[in-house]
């Protein structure tokens, strides 16, 4: 589904990603872990086409297509989604209207019927149950005045509306209490399908107890230093990240 080859990227002329290789197949859940500032969010944002980042080398194929040939909105309609670490507030734009436009843009691209406001209302009422969101949030301005946790709920609601093939979830657990984390983790699991894939970005292994990855990659200094199975997440939980960095520096010998 997603194939990243030797990807390098910089922001304001500073290299952040220094050669990333990653393969994600349908049905897989991957986790990117690593210390703060290692480039995790950067990787996600580069994939979805954030304008602040410059891709300086490498190649990314999404479903066989060169991702960097596609505008960010085209990538989104092709099934790429990113749940942001810090979702932005948009005063004056109603959450429901935003969700409906996003839904209809995707439906249009896929040749499905668009939903009018009443149809969408029925549709969205089902979806908000999945993330235990109160209906009142639909009428509010998009993310405006939402708490950190409510913003994250809204991100997963958007994911539920768009049903992306590949969802990149950046620090879903930040700002969430333990119950909300379980609710959203469960929601993400329910949305996962055999033809979909997930890339979970996290500093803390906690979320991986609910959303269980088959593959764990440790990112540090813009490079993937170590890869492993679910066991690696547990090891990181116990030992932190420093040993991975040291191990990489000494070429794997201790």
């Amino acid at each position, binding site marked *: 589904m997603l194939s990243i080859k030797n990807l390098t990227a910089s922001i304001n002329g500073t290299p952040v990603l220094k050669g990333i290789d990653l393969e994600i197949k349908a049905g897989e859940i991957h986790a990117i872990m690593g210390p703060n500032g290692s480039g995790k969010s950067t990787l996600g944002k580069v994939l979805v*086409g954030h304008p602040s980042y410059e891709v300086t080398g490498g190649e990314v194929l999404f479903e066989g297509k060169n991702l960097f040939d596609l*505008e960010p*909105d085209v990538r989104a309609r092709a099934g790429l*989604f*990113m749940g942001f670490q810090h979702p*932005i507030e*948009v005063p004056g734009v109603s959450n429901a*209207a*935003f969700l409906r436009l996003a839904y209809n*843009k995707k439906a249009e691209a896929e040749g499905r019927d668009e939903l009018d406001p009443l149809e969408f209302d029925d549709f969205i009422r089902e979806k908000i149950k999945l993330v235990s969101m109160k209906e009142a949030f639909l009428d509010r301005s998009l993310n405006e005045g939402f708490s950190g946790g409510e913003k994250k709920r809204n991100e997963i609601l958007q994911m539920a509306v768009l049903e992306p093939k590949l969802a990149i979830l950046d620090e879903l657990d930040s700002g969430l209490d333990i119950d909300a984390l379980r609710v959203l983790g469960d929601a993400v699991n329910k949305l996962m399908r055999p033809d979909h894939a997930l890339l979970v970005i996290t500093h803390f292994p906690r979320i991986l107890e609910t959303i269980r990855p088959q593959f764990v990659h440790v990112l540090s200094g813009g490079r993937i230093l170590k890869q492993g199975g679910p066991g690696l997440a547990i090891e990181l939980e116990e030992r932190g990240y420093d040993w991975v960095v040291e191990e990489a520096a000494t070429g794997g010998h201790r």
Partner: protein
Amino acid sequence: MNSTFQGVTSQEYKYGFVTDIEADSVAPGLNEEVIRFISAKKGEPDWLLDFRLKAYRHWLTLAEPGWAKVQYPTPDFQKIVYYSAPRPKKAQFASMDEVDPELKRTFEKLGVPIHEQEALAGVAVDVVFDSVSVTTTYKEKLAAVGIIFCSFSEAVKTHPDLVKRYLGSVVPAADNFYAALNSAVFTDGSFVFIPKGVACPMDLSTYFRINNQESGQFERTLIVAEEGASVSYLEGCTAPRFDTNQLHAAVVELVALDHASIKYSTVQNWYAGDKDGKGGIFNFVTKRGLCKGRGSHISWTQVETGSAITWKYPSCVLLGDDSIGEFYSVALTNHKQQADTGTKMIHIGRNTKSTIISKGISAGDSSNSYRGLVKVQPKAEGARNFSQCDSMLIGHTCSANTFPTLDVQNRSARVEHEATTSKIGEEQLFYFQQRGIPAEEAISMIINGFCKDVFRELPMEFAVEATKLLSLKLEGSVG
């Protein structure tokens, strides 16, 4: 950076065509002879010629106002054509068949429902082309309920007493530099009179069009609503694109008697000049409403998108007790446009109320200023004002300013002012794009959200129009 913004392609001004029509014009320049010529051309009574000449003589003593935050070369008033009429010289046509087909095509292109059969939308339209009003639709239907809706020139002939009573009663000829100029040389405009107790059965509308490259447009609108009468009036404007500047200096006067209500809506889309600031309309307009009667109500709603320079402060003088003044404004500037616009609410009567909602959107290298005055006079017991002035910046080379002035001379008055400045940032746009929404639709959704409180005041079709217009104006310029 900013590639998302620039990726949205630029849209050219779509009303920029010139109609090839024979015009009956006077040579450029201004002096008493020209004024006499205009007055004679229109067969005006002596009192009106006097009004003009007095205004002109006063204007000669005035200097152009310099306090607005706009910069432009002073127009050469001797290079302007003060009278230009489409031929045939008849200012008013007996029926649509007499109108020059070329002129009809122009208005069709502009989407003005000039044909009565097309005017099913239920809007009565007066059309002012350069200096002359060319047609007024629905006149008979309105006349049946006693409403007068005609060109200003016609009103001078058919209802001289009414014109004489109210002309200059809200905006005196000596009011300011541009009002004085207008009073001297105004050529046409609309006249509306709603008699006692009549609610106007349809929206009335005037469509202004500047066609002649050298001509200035100086129209004069006068709307009077008698006791208990009500009317909603719409004004639309476009102009061809020339690389010289045209001057538009209009005066609009509204008079509302006891419990009368006048709602005046404008969607202004004069030509704004090109992206380097060449050409475009200088829009120096004096609009003022007098809430003369008790419980009267005047509401201004404006969507200002065109013009190279905008200098405009639709105001309300709240003379009658319990009268209400409102100002709802969206002013958008882009490229090198400059706007200095706002309102004045003068509270004179007791328990008078005013509301000001101003939304300024600036993009490109433009400058957008809100200038407002809320004045509560000593006798205005219980006066209240609420003002909300919001600015939105798009990109980082534009500027927004607010200059609110409060002058409260009555201790029982309550005055509230709120102001915000926000930015359509790249992050917001990107967020929309990441959810599959193209940049241009994202911009229009964000802008509509920002302008919601003003758009809801507009008549339905106007609101739709305004929404489209704003998106169009911002295309390719954001960032």
